[in-house]
């Protein structure tokens, strides 16, 4: 029962702040709401007994990506910040589209039958994930490392701009 209450609260936080993020007219507010949404998602992970992922969520999303977003906002600020995050001409169509998608997904979720497992979640998830990373998924792991390196260099190059040397 208590689990249901926790889920309810977390779901309310995630959806509420998510909506707030989208609807807010102030981009800085949006960024802060987004950070809160991410924290809520981390809570959901904990609820799903995925402690390691929850920690990563906090570190990467709340710690890094949100800060990056704020930097992005700061570096591209122009005009009144209070009207920095307004809707475009697709507000109505986009909203209807998102609603339609949600309805369809919901219908599909409830009409599908799932083959639920009764096993319990292992206590120590971190060492198991580490095992998988270093054995079965070692090549994707290394590729991800490479991707991050490329993204790092690429981001610097794109943001800094290449000097025209002919």
């Amino acid at each position, binding site marked *: 029962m208590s689990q249901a209450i926790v889920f309810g609260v977390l779901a309310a936080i995630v959806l509420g702040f998510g909506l707030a993020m989208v609807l807010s007219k102030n981009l800085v507010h949006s960024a802060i709401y*987004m950070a809160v949404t991410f924290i809520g998602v981390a809570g959901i992970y904990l609820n799903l007994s995925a402690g390691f*992922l929850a920690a990563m969520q906090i570190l990467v*999303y709340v710690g890094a*990506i949100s800060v990056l977003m704020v930097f992005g906002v700061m570096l591209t600020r122009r005009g009144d910040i209070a009207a920095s995050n307004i*809707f475009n001409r697709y507000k109505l169509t986009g909203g209807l589209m*998102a609603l339609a998608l*949600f309805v369809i997904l919901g219908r599909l979720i409830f009409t599908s039958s799932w083959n639920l497992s009764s096993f319990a979640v292992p206590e120590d*998830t971190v060492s198991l994930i580490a095992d998988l990373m270093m054995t079965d998924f070692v090549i994707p792991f290394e590729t991800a490392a490479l991707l991050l390196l490329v993204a790092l260099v690429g981001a610097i190059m794109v943001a800094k701009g290449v000097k025209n040397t002919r």
Partner: protein
Amino acid sequence: MITLEHYLLLAAALFSIGLFGAVAKKNAVAVLMGIELMLNSVNINLVAFNRFLMPSQLVGHVFAVFVIVVAAAEVAIGLAIVISIYRDKFSTEVDNLDWLKW
């Protein structure tokens, strides 16, 4: 009893909200934020499936980790592009970025 359907429904809702933000916002940074929400909802799905369908194997977690990695890279590059365009056009409005047109 909270079970798989609830988590999936939550993820679906979060995805729809993210889609709404990505499609209907003027500012490019806000669009990126919407995309982050969508990625998060996918992660919730992955972890929830892992938790309820095959809890003994943590493949879903590993996938989620990779998604986070890709999301981080995407945000870094995306913001770099936005900054670069901003320097060029003094605007971050996606509507102005219509050079793909004939």
